[in-house]
Protein backbone atom coordinates (compact mmCIF):
# COMPACT_ATOMS: atom_id res chain seq x y z
CA UNK A 1 0.00 0.00 0.00
CA UNK A 2 1.37 3.41 -0.82
CA UNK A 3 1.16 6.47 1.39
CA UNK A 4 -1.75 7.86 -0.54
CA UNK A 5 -3.85 4.77 0.09
CA UNK A 6 -2.91 4.67 3.76
CA UNK A 7 -3.83 8.31 4.07
CA UNK A 8 -7.19 7.75 2.39
CA UNK A 9 -7.90 4.97 4.85
CA UNK A 10 -6.67 6.88 7.92
CA UNK A 11 -8.68 10.02 7.18
CA UNK A 12 -11.61 8.10 5.76
CA UNK A 13 -13.12 4.94 7.20
CA UNK A 14 -10.62 4.54 10.05
CA UNK A 15 -11.14 8.13 11.17
CA UNK A 16 -14.92 7.78 11.27
CA UNK A 17 -14.68 4.46 13.02
CA UNK A 18 -12.34 5.92 15.67
CA UNK A 19 -14.55 8.97 16.10
CA UNK A 20 -17.67 6.88 16.64
CA UNK A 21 -15.79 4.49 18.90
CA UNK A 22 -14.70 7.43 21.04
CA UNK A 23 -18.15 8.99 21.23
CA UNK A 24 -19.98 5.77 21.99
CA UNK A 25 -17.25 4.62 24.34
CA UNK A 26 -17.45 7.84 26.34
CA UNK A 27 -21.23 7.74 26.37
CA UNK A 28 -21.08 4.18 27.63
CA UNK A 29 -18.61 5.08 30.38
CA UNK A 30 -20.76 7.99 31.42
CA UNK A 31 -23.88 5.86 31.43
CA UNK A 32 -22.20 3.13 33.50
CA UNK A 33 -21.21 5.64 36.14
CA UNK A 34 -24.59 7.33 36.31
CA UNK A 35 -26.43 4.01 36.39
CA UNK A 36 -24.68 3.16 39.67
CA UNK A 37 -27.20 5.50 41.24
CA UNK A 38 -26.99 8.78 43.02
CA UNK A 39 -28.46 8.93 46.51
CA UNK A 40 -30.23 12.13 47.47
CA UNK A 41 -28.47 14.40 49.96
CA UNK A 42 -30.93 15.03 52.81
CA UNK A 43 -28.56 17.13 54.90
CA UNK A 44 -29.80 20.68 55.37
CA UNK A 45 -27.26 23.07 53.90
CA UNK A 46 -25.61 25.98 55.69
CA UNK A 47 -24.70 27.75 52.44
CA UNK A 48 -25.67 27.53 48.79
CA UNK A 49 -24.62 24.49 46.78
CA UNK A 50 -25.32 26.26 43.52
CA UNK A 51 -23.12 29.16 44.46
CA UNK A 52 -20.35 26.74 45.40
CA UNK A 53 -20.57 25.04 42.01
CA UNK A 54 -20.60 28.29 40.03
CA UNK A 55 -17.73 29.78 41.99
CA UNK A 56 -15.53 26.71 41.79
CA UNK A 57 -15.86 26.53 37.99
CA UNK A 58 -15.21 30.25 37.60
CA UNK A 59 -12.14 30.00 39.77
CA UNK A 60 -10.89 26.89 38.00
CA UNK A 61 -11.17 28.44 34.55
CA UNK A 62 -10.67 32.15 35.10
CA UNK A 63 -8.65 32.72 38.24
CA UNK A 64 -6.23 30.01 39.34
CA UNK A 65 -4.62 29.47 35.94
CA UNK A 66 -3.62 33.14 35.86
CA UNK A 67 -2.48 33.70 39.44
CA UNK A 68 -1.29 30.24 40.40
CA UNK A 69 1.35 31.45 42.86
CA UNK A 70 -1.25 32.27 45.49
CA UNK A 71 -2.06 28.57 45.76
CA UNK A 72 0.02 26.10 47.71
CA UNK A 73 -0.71 23.63 44.93
CA UNK A 74 1.45 25.69 42.67
CA UNK A 75 4.20 26.47 45.10
CA UNK A 76 4.71 22.87 46.04
CA UNK A 77 4.24 21.36 42.56
CA UNK A 78 5.49 24.04 40.16
CA UNK A 79 6.71 21.52 37.62
CA UNK A 80 3.49 19.50 37.35
CA UNK A 81 1.46 22.69 37.49
CA UNK A 82 3.33 24.58 34.77
CA UNK A 83 3.97 21.47 32.68
CA UNK A 84 0.39 20.30 32.91
CA UNK A 85 -0.96 23.80 32.38
CA UNK A 86 1.14 24.46 29.27
CA UNK A 87 0.29 21.05 27.87
CA UNK A 88 -3.45 21.69 28.16
CA UNK A 89 -3.08 25.22 26.82
CA UNK A 90 -1.11 23.90 23.89
CA UNK A 91 -3.81 21.33 23.13
CA UNK A 92 -6.46 24.02 23.19
CA UNK A 93 -4.52 26.39 20.96
CA UNK A 94 -3.58 23.74 18.43
CA UNK A 95 -6.83 21.80 18.24
CA UNK A 96 -9.23 24.71 18.45
CA UNK A 97 -7.30 27.74 17.26
CA UNK A 98 -5.07 26.14 14.60
CA UNK A 99 -6.36 26.64 11.08
CA UNK A 100 -6.08 23.03 9.79
CA UNK A 101 -7.89 21.67 12.84
CA UNK A 102 -10.55 24.33 12.69
CA UNK A 103 -11.26 23.18 9.13
CA UNK A 104 -11.72 19.62 10.36
CA UNK A 105 -14.19 20.88 12.95
CA UNK A 106 -15.94 22.89 10.26
CA UNK A 107 -16.39 19.84 8.08
CA UNK A 108 -17.77 17.91 11.06
CA UNK A 109 -20.06 20.46 12.67
CA UNK A 110 -20.74 22.85 9.87
CA UNK A 111 -19.22 26.13 11.03
CA UNK A 112 -15.79 27.58 11.66
CA UNK A 113 -14.15 30.43 13.53
CA UNK A 114 -11.19 32.80 13.50
CA UNK A 115 -7.83 31.12 14.10
CA UNK A 116 -4.37 32.18 15.24
CA UNK A 117 -1.45 32.76 12.87
CA UNK A 118 0.61 29.66 12.14
CA UNK A 119 3.83 30.73 13.94
CA UNK A 120 1.98 31.11 17.25
CA UNK A 121 0.24 27.78 16.88
CA UNK A 122 3.52 26.21 15.87
CA UNK A 123 5.35 27.53 18.91
CA UNK A 124 2.56 26.40 21.17
CA UNK A 125 2.71 22.91 19.76
CA UNK A 126 6.46 22.81 20.33
CA UNK A 127 5.89 23.96 23.91
CA UNK A 128 3.28 21.24 24.36
CA UNK A 129 5.71 18.59 23.14
CA UNK A 130 8.46 19.78 25.46
CA UNK A 131 6.03 19.91 28.39
CA UNK A 132 4.99 16.34 27.68
CA UNK A 133 8.60 15.14 27.70
CA UNK A 134 9.29 16.92 30.97
CA UNK A 135 6.14 15.47 32.51
CA UNK A 136 7.18 11.98 31.45
CA UNK A 137 10.64 12.38 32.95
CA UNK A 138 9.08 13.71 36.14
CA UNK A 139 6.73 10.75 36.24
CA UNK A 140 9.71 8.42 36.06
CA UNK A 141 11.64 10.07 38.89
CA UNK A 142 9.14 11.58 41.34
CA UNK A 143 8.65 9.00 44.11
CA UNK A 144 4.89 9.48 44.33
CA UNK A 145 4.38 9.43 40.57
CA UNK A 146 6.59 6.36 40.26
CA UNK A 147 4.43 4.61 42.82
CA UNK A 148 1.09 5.45 41.22
CA UNK A 149 2.08 4.96 37.58
CA UNK A 150 1.86 1.71 35.65
CA UNK A 151 1.57 0.66 32.01
CA UNK A 152 -1.80 2.44 31.74
CA UNK A 153 -0.23 5.81 32.54
CA UNK A 154 2.60 5.22 30.09
CA UNK A 155 0.31 4.21 27.24
CA UNK A 156 -1.96 7.17 27.87
CA UNK A 157 1.09 9.40 27.65
CA UNK A 158 2.33 7.73 24.50
CA UNK A 159 -0.97 7.86 22.62
CA UNK A 160 -1.36 11.56 23.40
CA UNK A 161 2.25 12.31 22.58
CA UNK A 162 2.37 10.65 19.16
CA UNK A 163 -0.25 12.83 17.43
CA UNK A 164 1.48 15.91 18.82
CA UNK A 165 4.83 14.75 17.52
CA UNK A 166 3.58 13.62 14.09
CA UNK A 167 1.60 16.84 13.74
CA UNK A 168 4.70 18.88 14.40
CA UNK A 169 6.76 16.79 11.98
CA UNK A 170 4.09 17.23 9.37
CA UNK A 171 4.06 21.01 9.67
CA UNK A 172 7.82 21.07 9.31
CA UNK A 173 8.09 18.38 6.62
CA UNK A 174 10.43 16.23 8.68
CA UNK A 175 10.82 12.56 7.81
CA UNK A 176 9.08 11.78 4.54
CA UNK A 177 6.69 12.82 1.83
CA UNK A 178 3.70 14.99 2.69
CA UNK A 179 1.33 12.05 2.24
CA UNK A 180 3.41 9.78 4.44
CA UNK A 181 3.61 12.40 7.20
CA UNK A 182 -0.06 13.19 6.96
CA UNK A 183 -0.94 9.48 7.04
CA UNK A 184 1.18 8.97 10.15
CA UNK A 185 -0.46 11.88 11.89
CA UNK A 186 -3.93 10.62 11.05
CA UNK A 187 -3.20 7.10 12.23
CA UNK A 188 -1.90 8.32 15.59
CA UNK A 189 -4.94 10.57 15.95
CA UNK A 190 -7.26 7.65 15.21
CA UNK A 191 -5.47 5.46 17.71
CA UNK A 192 -5.73 8.21 20.32
CA UNK A 193 -9.46 8.53 19.76
CA UNK A 194 -9.87 4.82 20.29
CA UNK A 195 -7.71 4.93 23.40
CA UNK A 196 -9.57 7.83 25.05
CA UNK A 197 -12.60 5.87 26.26
CA UNK A 198 -10.36 2.96 27.25
CA UNK A 199 -8.18 5.03 29.56
CA UNK A 200 -7.97 7.88 32.02
CA UNK A 201 -7.59 10.35 29.16
CA UNK A 202 -11.38 10.45 29.52
CA UNK A 203 -10.94 12.47 32.71
CA UNK A 204 -12.20 15.57 30.90
CA UNK A 205 -15.69 14.08 30.92
CA UNK A 206 -15.69 13.26 34.63
CA UNK A 207 -13.99 16.51 35.53
CA UNK A 208 -17.34 18.25 35.31
CA UNK A 209 -18.74 15.87 37.88
CA UNK A 210 -15.88 16.02 40.34
CA UNK A 211 -15.56 19.79 40.14
CA UNK A 212 -19.32 20.18 40.61
CA UNK A 213 -19.20 17.82 43.59
CA UNK A 214 -16.40 19.90 45.06
CA UNK A 215 -18.50 23.03 44.68
CA UNK A 216 -21.53 21.36 46.25
CA UNK A 217 -19.64 19.95 49.21
CA UNK A 218 -17.95 23.21 50.08
CA UNK A 219 -20.91 25.35 49.08
CA UNK A 220 -23.36 23.53 51.32
CA UNK A 221 -21.06 24.16 54.27
CA UNK A 222 -20.70 27.80 53.36
CA UNK A 223 -16.95 27.37 52.92
CA UNK A 224 -15.02 29.10 50.14
CA UNK A 225 -14.14 26.67 47.34
Amino acid at each position, binding site marked *: MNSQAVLEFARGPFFYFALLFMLFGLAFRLFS*VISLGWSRD*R*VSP*MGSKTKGVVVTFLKAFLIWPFIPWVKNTFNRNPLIYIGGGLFHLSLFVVIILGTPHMLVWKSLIGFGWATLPLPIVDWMSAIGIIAMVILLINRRIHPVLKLI*SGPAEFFAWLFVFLPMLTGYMMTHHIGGSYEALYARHMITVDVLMIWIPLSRISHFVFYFFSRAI*HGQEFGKRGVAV
Partner: protein
Amino acid sequence: MMSTTEKAMEAFVHETGGWVAAQLEACTRCGMCAEACHFYQATGNPEYAPVWKMELLRRAYEQRFTIIGGVKATLGLDKRVTDEDLAHWSDLNYEACTVCNKCSMVCPMGIDIGSLLHGMRAGLAAAEVIPADLAAAVTKQVNEGSPLGMTDTVWDQRLEWVADEWEVEIPRDVKGATTMVVFSSIEVMKFPANVAAIAKILNKAGEKWTVSSKAREIVNFGFYEGSEEHTKLFLNRVLDGAKDLGVKRIVVTECGHAYDALRWHAANWIPEASNFDVIHITGVLGELVGSGRIKIKPGFFDNGGKITFHDACKIQRKGGHIQEPRDILKVLAPNSFTEMTPNREESVCCGGGGGVIAVKAADPVRYASFELKIDQVNAVGAKTVSMTCSNCRLQFTDSVDHFKLDWKVAGLSQMVADALEE
Protein backbone atom coordinates in the same frame (compact mmCIF):
# COMPACT_ATOMS: atom_id res chain seq x y z
CA MET B 1 -18.20 -17.68 55.05
CA MET B 2 -16.82 -14.67 53.24
CA SER B 3 -13.09 -14.15 53.47
CA THR B 4 -11.70 -10.93 54.90
CA THR B 5 -10.91 -9.67 51.44
CA GLU B 6 -14.38 -10.49 50.15
CA LYS B 7 -15.95 -8.60 53.02
CA ALA B 8 -13.81 -5.57 52.29
CA MET B 9 -14.56 -5.76 48.58
CA GLU B 10 -18.29 -6.02 49.26
CA ALA B 11 -18.12 -2.93 51.43
CA PHE B 12 -16.05 -1.02 48.86
CA VAL B 13 -18.58 -1.92 46.21
CA HIS B 14 -21.42 -0.92 48.52
CA GLU B 15 -19.72 2.45 49.04
CA THR B 16 -19.52 3.00 45.31
CA GLY B 17 -22.52 4.84 43.95
CA GLY B 18 -22.26 7.13 40.96
CA TRP B 19 -21.05 9.88 43.27
CA VAL B 20 -17.92 7.96 44.21
CA ALA B 21 -17.45 6.37 40.79
CA ALA B 22 -17.52 9.70 38.96
CA GLN B 23 -14.77 10.98 41.22
CA LEU B 24 -12.62 7.87 40.92
CA GLU B 25 -12.97 8.20 37.15
CA ALA B 26 -11.94 11.84 37.23
CA CYS B 27 -8.59 11.18 38.88
CA THR B 28 -5.72 11.68 36.44
CA ARG B 29 -3.12 10.25 38.79
CA CYS B 30 -1.21 13.51 38.66
CA GLY B 31 0.03 13.07 42.21
CA MET B 32 -0.49 16.69 43.19
CA CYS B 33 -2.55 15.76 46.22
CA ALA B 34 0.59 14.32 47.86
CA GLU B 35 1.95 17.76 48.63
CA ALA B 36 -1.27 18.71 50.40
CA CYS B 37 -1.00 15.97 52.98
CA HIS B 38 0.75 16.87 56.21
CA PHE B 39 1.83 13.26 56.69
CA TYR B 40 3.52 13.25 53.29
CA GLN B 41 5.01 16.69 53.84
CA ALA B 42 6.38 15.65 57.20
CA THR B 43 7.86 12.32 56.16
CA GLY B 44 8.24 12.33 52.38
CA ASN B 45 6.84 8.79 52.32
CA PRO B 46 5.26 8.39 48.86
CA GLU B 47 2.76 5.88 50.23
CA TYR B 48 1.18 8.73 52.19
CA ALA B 49 -0.02 10.35 48.96
CA PRO B 50 -3.82 10.64 49.27
CA VAL B 51 -4.36 9.08 45.85
CA TRP B 52 -2.38 6.03 46.98
CA LYS B 53 -4.27 5.73 50.25
CA MET B 54 -7.48 5.17 48.27
CA GLU B 55 -5.89 2.71 45.86
CA LEU B 56 -7.92 -0.31 47.05
CA LEU B 57 -11.19 1.53 46.56
CA ARG B 58 -10.13 2.30 43.01
CA ARG B 59 -9.16 -1.30 42.33
CA ALA B 60 -12.42 -2.60 43.77
CA TYR B 61 -14.42 -0.17 41.66
CA GLU B 62 -12.58 -0.70 38.42
CA GLN B 63 -12.41 -4.46 38.68
CA ARG B 64 -16.04 -4.83 39.67
CA PHE B 65 -17.78 -2.16 37.65
CA THR B 66 -15.77 -1.42 34.52
CA ILE B 67 -15.15 -3.66 31.55
CA ILE B 68 -11.62 -2.38 31.13
CA GLY B 69 -10.90 -2.94 34.82
CA GLY B 70 -12.23 -6.47 34.61
CA VAL B 71 -10.12 -7.23 31.56
CA LYS B 72 -7.01 -5.73 33.15
CA ALA B 73 -7.46 -7.76 36.31
CA THR B 74 -7.98 -10.95 34.30
CA LEU B 75 -4.84 -10.31 32.28
CA GLY B 76 -2.91 -9.58 35.46
CA LEU B 77 -2.36 -5.91 34.51
CA ASP B 78 -4.11 -4.71 37.67
CA LYS B 79 -3.50 -6.38 41.02
CA ARG B 80 -6.30 -8.11 42.90
CA VAL B 81 -6.81 -7.04 46.49
CA THR B 82 -5.30 -9.47 49.01
CA ASP B 83 -5.39 -9.85 52.79
CA GLU B 84 -1.87 -8.41 52.98
CA ASP B 85 -3.04 -5.39 51.02
CA LEU B 86 -5.84 -4.80 53.48
CA ALA B 87 -3.45 -4.93 56.42
CA HIS B 88 -1.04 -2.56 54.69
CA TRP B 89 -3.71 -0.05 53.68
CA SER B 90 -5.19 -0.22 57.14
CA ASP B 91 -1.88 1.11 58.46
CA LEU B 92 -1.75 3.81 55.79
CA ASN B 93 -5.31 4.98 56.40
CA TYR B 94 -5.66 4.78 60.16
CA GLU B 95 -2.13 5.85 61.08
CA ALA B 96 -1.35 8.43 58.44
CA CYS B 97 -4.65 10.04 57.53
CA THR B 98 -6.84 12.30 59.61
CA VAL B 99 -9.50 12.54 56.88
CA CYS B 100 -8.92 16.30 57.04
CA ASN B 101 -9.78 16.78 53.37
CA LYS B 102 -7.00 19.29 52.76
CA CYS B 103 -6.08 17.20 49.72
CA SER B 104 -9.41 18.07 48.16
CA MET B 105 -8.42 21.74 48.17
CA VAL B 106 -5.41 20.91 46.04
CA CYS B 107 -6.69 18.30 43.60
CA PRO B 108 -6.98 19.98 40.19
CA MET B 109 -10.00 17.81 39.46
CA GLY B 110 -11.68 18.92 42.69
CA ILE B 111 -12.14 15.36 43.91
CA ASP B 112 -13.55 15.17 47.43
CA ILE B 113 -10.73 12.87 48.45
CA GLY B 114 -11.66 12.94 52.14
CA SER B 115 -15.01 11.29 51.42
CA LEU B 116 -13.36 8.61 49.32
CA LEU B 117 -10.87 7.96 52.10
CA HIS B 118 -13.79 7.53 54.46
CA GLY B 119 -15.03 4.94 51.95
CA MET B 120 -11.67 3.18 52.29
CA ARG B 121 -12.20 3.03 56.03
CA ALA B 122 -15.68 1.61 55.51
CA GLY B 123 -14.20 -1.33 53.61
CA LEU B 124 -11.44 -1.88 56.13
CA ALA B 125 -13.89 -1.69 59.03
CA ALA B 126 -16.27 -4.15 57.38
CA ALA B 127 -13.39 -6.59 57.08
CA GLU B 128 -12.37 -5.77 60.63
CA VAL B 129 -8.85 -4.89 59.59
CA ILE B 130 -8.40 -1.97 61.94
CA PRO B 131 -5.75 -1.08 64.51
CA ALA B 132 -6.25 -2.99 67.77
CA ASP B 133 -6.41 0.15 69.93
CA LEU B 134 -9.07 1.69 67.72
CA ALA B 135 -11.09 -1.55 67.76
CA ALA B 136 -10.82 -1.65 71.55
CA ALA B 137 -12.09 1.92 71.82
CA VAL B 138 -15.05 1.10 69.56
CA THR B 139 -15.92 -1.95 71.65
CA LYS B 140 -15.70 0.15 74.77
CA GLN B 141 -18.07 2.71 73.30
CA VAL B 142 -20.50 -0.04 72.28
CA ASN B 143 -20.49 -1.59 75.74
CA GLU B 144 -19.96 1.31 78.12
CA GLY B 145 -21.29 4.19 76.10
CA SER B 146 -17.94 5.93 75.80
CA PRO B 147 -14.47 5.09 74.47
CA LEU B 148 -12.86 6.88 77.40
CA GLY B 149 -14.63 4.83 80.04
CA MET B 150 -17.19 7.51 80.82
CA THR B 151 -19.87 5.14 82.09
CA ASP B 152 -23.20 6.27 83.54
CA THR B 153 -21.76 6.59 87.02
CA VAL B 154 -18.55 8.26 85.93
CA TRP B 155 -20.50 10.78 83.83
CA ASP B 156 -22.79 11.46 86.76
CA GLN B 157 -19.95 12.00 89.23
CA ARG B 158 -17.86 14.11 86.86
CA LEU B 159 -20.71 16.51 86.08
CA GLU B 160 -21.55 16.73 89.76
CA TRP B 161 -17.94 17.59 90.47
CA VAL B 162 -17.69 20.15 87.65
CA ALA B 163 -20.86 21.85 88.90
CA ASP B 164 -19.40 22.03 92.41
CA GLU B 165 -15.86 22.96 91.53
CA TRP B 166 -16.79 25.80 89.13
CA GLU B 167 -20.01 26.70 90.91
CA VAL B 168 -22.05 26.44 87.79
CA GLU B 169 -25.45 24.94 87.17
CA ILE B 170 -25.67 22.09 84.65
CA PRO B 171 -29.33 21.32 83.93
CA ARG B 172 -29.89 17.60 83.45
CA ASP B 173 -32.61 15.75 81.57
CA VAL B 174 -34.87 18.80 81.44
CA LYS B 175 -37.92 17.94 79.35
CA GLY B 176 -39.05 20.79 77.16
CA ALA B 177 -35.65 22.50 77.01
CA THR B 178 -34.89 24.04 73.63
CA THR B 179 -31.29 22.97 73.36
CA MET B 180 -29.58 19.74 74.25
CA VAL B 181 -25.83 19.96 74.70
CA VAL B 182 -23.78 16.81 74.22
CA PHE B 183 -20.22 16.98 75.50
CA SER B 184 -17.38 14.77 74.38
CA SER B 185 -15.77 12.48 76.91
CA ILE B 186 -12.47 14.20 76.09
CA GLU B 187 -13.90 17.35 77.63
CA VAL B 188 -15.63 15.68 80.55
CA MET B 189 -12.59 13.57 81.44
CA LYS B 190 -9.63 15.70 80.34
CA PHE B 191 -10.78 19.30 79.89
CA PRO B 192 -13.56 19.65 82.49
CA ALA B 193 -13.05 23.41 82.59
CA ASN B 194 -14.50 23.43 79.09
CA VAL B 195 -17.71 21.85 80.33
CA ALA B 196 -17.95 24.48 83.05
CA ALA B 197 -17.22 27.24 80.53
CA ILE B 198 -19.95 26.19 78.14
CA ALA B 199 -22.44 25.83 81.01
CA LYS B 200 -21.54 29.27 82.27
CA ILE B 201 -21.98 30.84 78.83
CA LEU B 202 -25.35 29.21 78.15
CA ASN B 203 -26.66 30.10 81.59
CA LYS B 204 -25.54 33.67 81.15
CA ALA B 205 -27.32 33.85 77.79
CA GLY B 206 -30.51 32.57 79.39
CA GLU B 207 -30.61 29.62 77.02
CA LYS B 208 -33.12 26.90 77.92
CA TRP B 209 -30.67 24.05 77.74
CA THR B 210 -30.02 20.63 79.17
CA VAL B 211 -27.71 17.68 79.04
CA SER B 212 -29.12 14.18 78.66
CA SER B 213 -28.07 11.12 80.61
CA LYS B 214 -29.02 9.05 77.59
CA ALA B 215 -27.13 11.16 75.08
CA ARG B 216 -24.04 11.70 77.17
CA GLU B 217 -21.29 11.03 74.64
CA ILE B 218 -20.88 12.92 71.37
CA VAL B 219 -17.60 11.27 70.33
CA ASN B 220 -18.27 8.71 67.61
CA PHE B 221 -15.57 6.10 67.30
CA GLY B 222 -17.70 4.27 64.77
CA PHE B 223 -17.19 7.22 62.43
CA TYR B 224 -13.44 7.17 63.02
CA GLU B 225 -13.42 3.50 62.24
CA GLY B 226 -15.67 3.97 59.20
CA SER B 227 -18.27 1.41 60.23
CA GLU B 228 -21.74 2.51 59.25
CA GLU B 229 -23.30 0.15 61.77
CA HIS B 230 -21.37 1.53 64.74
CA THR B 231 -21.65 5.11 63.56
CA LYS B 232 -25.42 4.78 63.42
CA LEU B 233 -25.57 3.06 66.79
CA PHE B 234 -23.75 5.97 68.45
CA LEU B 235 -25.68 8.60 66.50
CA ASN B 236 -28.94 6.97 67.52
CA ARG B 237 -28.02 7.21 71.19
CA VAL B 238 -27.70 10.96 70.78
CA LEU B 239 -30.85 11.28 68.69
CA ASP B 240 -32.87 9.13 71.11
CA GLY B 241 -31.83 11.36 73.98
CA ALA B 242 -32.92 14.41 72.01
CA LYS B 243 -36.23 12.80 71.10
CA ASP B 244 -36.98 11.87 74.72
CA LEU B 245 -36.41 15.39 75.93
CA GLY B 246 -38.25 16.96 73.03
CA VAL B 247 -35.51 19.47 72.25
CA LYS B 248 -35.29 21.41 68.99
CA ARG B 249 -31.60 21.61 68.57
CA ILE B 250 -28.54 19.63 69.44
CA VAL B 251 -25.33 21.43 70.25
CA VAL B 252 -22.16 19.49 69.56
CA THR B 253 -19.34 20.69 71.78
CA GLU B 254 -15.68 20.66 70.93
CA CYS B 255 -15.38 17.49 68.88
CA GLY B 256 -14.83 17.76 65.17
CA HIS B 257 -15.39 14.24 63.90
CA ALA B 258 -18.59 13.95 65.94
CA TYR B 259 -19.83 17.20 64.47
CA ASP B 260 -19.07 16.01 60.95
CA ALA B 261 -21.00 12.79 61.58
CA LEU B 262 -24.05 14.37 63.20
CA ARG B 263 -24.28 17.58 61.19
CA TRP B 264 -23.18 16.52 57.73
CA HIS B 265 -23.99 12.83 57.48
CA ALA B 266 -26.59 11.67 60.00
CA ALA B 267 -29.62 12.79 57.98
CA ASN B 268 -28.52 10.60 55.09
CA TRP B 269 -28.42 7.51 57.30
CA ILE B 270 -31.15 8.19 59.83
CA PRO B 271 -34.11 10.20 58.50
CA GLU B 272 -35.18 11.43 61.99
CA ALA B 273 -31.92 13.32 62.26
CA SER B 274 -33.45 16.01 60.06
CA ASN B 275 -35.94 16.76 62.85
CA PHE B 276 -33.22 18.54 64.79
CA ASP B 277 -31.06 21.55 64.14
CA VAL B 278 -27.52 20.47 64.72
CA ILE B 279 -25.01 23.17 65.46
CA HIS B 280 -21.46 23.29 66.74
CA ILE B 281 -20.70 25.24 69.90
CA THR B 282 -18.56 27.58 67.78
CA GLY B 283 -21.69 28.55 65.84
CA VAL B 284 -23.53 29.09 69.12
CA LEU B 285 -20.76 31.32 70.46
CA GLY B 286 -20.82 33.32 67.25
CA GLU B 287 -24.60 33.71 67.53
CA LEU B 288 -24.54 34.73 71.21
CA VAL B 289 -21.71 37.24 70.87
CA GLY B 290 -22.99 38.59 67.55
CA SER B 291 -26.51 39.17 68.81
CA GLY B 292 -25.31 40.63 72.10
CA ARG B 293 -26.97 37.93 74.20
CA ILE B 294 -23.67 37.62 75.99
CA LYS B 295 -21.14 40.40 76.36
CA ILE B 296 -17.42 39.76 76.37
CA LYS B 297 -14.77 42.16 77.61
CA PRO B 298 -12.99 43.73 74.64
CA GLY B 299 -9.23 43.26 74.75
CA PHE B 300 -9.43 40.83 77.67
CA PHE B 301 -6.64 38.69 76.22
CA ASP B 302 -4.54 41.48 74.79
CA ASN B 303 -1.78 41.42 77.36
CA GLY B 304 -0.44 37.87 77.26
CA GLY B 305 1.54 37.87 74.02
CA LYS B 306 0.42 36.98 70.55
CA ILE B 307 -2.58 34.71 70.07
CA THR B 308 -3.22 32.67 66.98
CA PHE B 309 -6.09 30.41 65.93
CA HIS B 310 -5.81 26.81 64.78
CA ASP B 311 -8.53 25.79 62.32
CA ALA B 312 -9.88 22.30 62.95
CA CYS B 313 -10.52 20.34 59.76
CA LYS B 314 -13.98 19.12 60.72
CA ILE B 315 -15.23 22.30 62.36
CA GLN B 316 -13.77 24.90 60.05
CA ARG B 317 -12.90 23.48 56.60
CA LYS B 318 -15.48 20.68 56.72
CA GLY B 319 -17.81 22.29 59.23
CA GLY B 320 -18.25 25.83 57.98
CA HIS B 321 -17.56 27.70 61.23
CA ILE B 322 -14.65 29.69 59.90
CA GLN B 323 -15.68 33.26 60.56
CA GLU B 324 -17.13 33.06 64.09
CA PRO B 325 -13.88 32.33 65.96
CA ARG B 326 -12.20 35.21 64.15
CA ASP B 327 -14.98 37.63 65.00
CA ILE B 328 -14.71 36.62 68.64
CA LEU B 329 -10.92 36.74 68.82
CA LYS B 330 -10.92 40.18 67.24
CA VAL B 331 -12.97 41.38 70.20
CA LEU B 332 -11.02 39.46 72.84
CA ALA B 333 -7.60 40.31 71.50
CA PRO B 334 -7.83 43.03 68.86
CA ASN B 335 -4.12 43.77 69.03
CA SER B 336 -2.57 40.40 69.69
CA PHE B 337 -4.63 38.10 67.47
CA THR B 338 -2.60 37.05 64.43
CA GLU B 339 -3.44 34.59 61.67
CA MET B 340 -1.15 31.67 60.86
CA THR B 341 -0.40 30.84 57.24
CA PRO B 342 -2.12 28.94 55.75
CA ASN B 343 -5.39 29.48 57.56
CA ARG B 344 -9.17 29.15 57.27
CA GLU B 345 -10.23 26.46 54.77
CA GLU B 346 -6.62 26.07 53.64
CA SER B 347 -5.27 25.35 57.10
CA VAL B 348 -3.08 22.38 57.87
CA CYS B 349 -4.41 19.66 60.19
CA CYS B 350 -2.92 19.22 63.67
CA GLY B 351 -2.18 15.58 62.85
CA GLY B 352 -4.20 14.04 65.67
CA GLY B 353 -7.69 13.87 64.16
CA GLY B 354 -9.52 11.04 62.47
CA GLY B 355 -8.74 8.73 65.37
CA VAL B 356 -4.99 8.94 64.72
CA ILE B 357 -4.26 10.08 68.25
CA ALA B 358 -5.94 6.92 69.57
CA VAL B 359 -3.58 4.68 67.62
CA LYS B 360 -0.29 4.15 69.43
CA ALA B 361 1.57 2.95 66.33
CA ALA B 362 0.85 6.33 64.74
CA ASP B 363 2.79 8.30 67.35
CA PRO B 364 5.95 8.88 65.27
CA VAL B 365 4.08 10.26 62.23
CA ARG B 366 1.68 12.15 64.45
CA TYR B 367 4.54 14.00 66.11
CA ALA B 368 6.35 14.44 62.79
CA SER B 369 3.32 16.13 61.27
CA PHE B 370 2.93 18.34 64.31
CA GLU B 371 6.31 19.84 63.50
CA LEU B 372 4.62 21.61 60.58
CA LYS B 373 2.30 23.21 63.10
CA ILE B 374 5.23 24.25 65.24
CA ASP B 375 6.76 26.08 62.29
CA GLN B 376 3.49 27.85 61.50
CA VAL B 377 2.91 28.98 65.07
CA ASN B 378 6.52 30.06 65.53
CA ALA B 379 6.42 31.99 62.27
CA VAL B 380 3.91 34.38 63.81
CA GLY B 381 5.54 34.21 67.25
CA ALA B 382 2.34 33.24 69.03
CA LYS B 383 2.41 32.22 72.67
CA THR B 384 -1.22 31.13 72.82
CA VAL B 385 -2.97 28.90 70.32
CA SER B 386 -6.74 28.99 70.46
CA MET B 387 -8.97 26.29 68.95
CA THR B 388 -12.48 24.90 68.94
CA CYS B 389 -11.85 21.15 68.94
CA SER B 390 -10.86 19.16 72.00
CA ASN B 391 -9.33 16.47 69.85
CA CYS B 392 -6.97 19.04 68.32
CA ARG B 393 -6.43 20.27 71.84
CA LEU B 394 -5.42 16.80 72.97
CA GLN B 395 -2.90 16.64 70.13
CA PHE B 396 -1.64 20.13 70.98
CA THR B 397 -1.25 19.56 74.71
CA ASP B 398 0.39 16.19 74.15
CA SER B 399 2.77 17.58 71.52
CA VAL B 400 3.55 20.72 73.49
CA ASP B 401 4.67 18.33 76.20
CA HIS B 402 6.54 16.09 73.79
CA PHE B 403 8.42 18.96 72.13
CA LYS B 404 8.75 20.99 75.36
CA LEU B 405 7.13 24.09 73.92
CA ASP B 406 6.19 27.11 76.00
CA TRP B 407 2.79 27.68 74.37
CA LYS B 408 -0.56 28.01 76.01
CA VAL B 409 -3.26 25.87 74.42
CA ALA B 410 -6.67 27.43 74.86
CA GLY B 411 -10.18 26.31 74.02
CA LEU B 412 -12.24 29.14 72.56
CA SER B 413 -15.25 28.43 74.78
CA GLN B 414 -13.07 28.78 77.85
CA MET B 415 -11.64 32.06 76.61
CA VAL B 416 -15.15 33.39 76.05
CA ALA B 417 -16.31 32.20 79.48
CA ASP B 418 -13.31 33.85 81.16
CA ALA B 419 -14.01 37.13 79.43
CA LEU B 420 -17.75 37.27 80.14
CA GLU B 421 -19.00 40.62 81.41
CA GLU B 422 -20.64 40.06 84.76
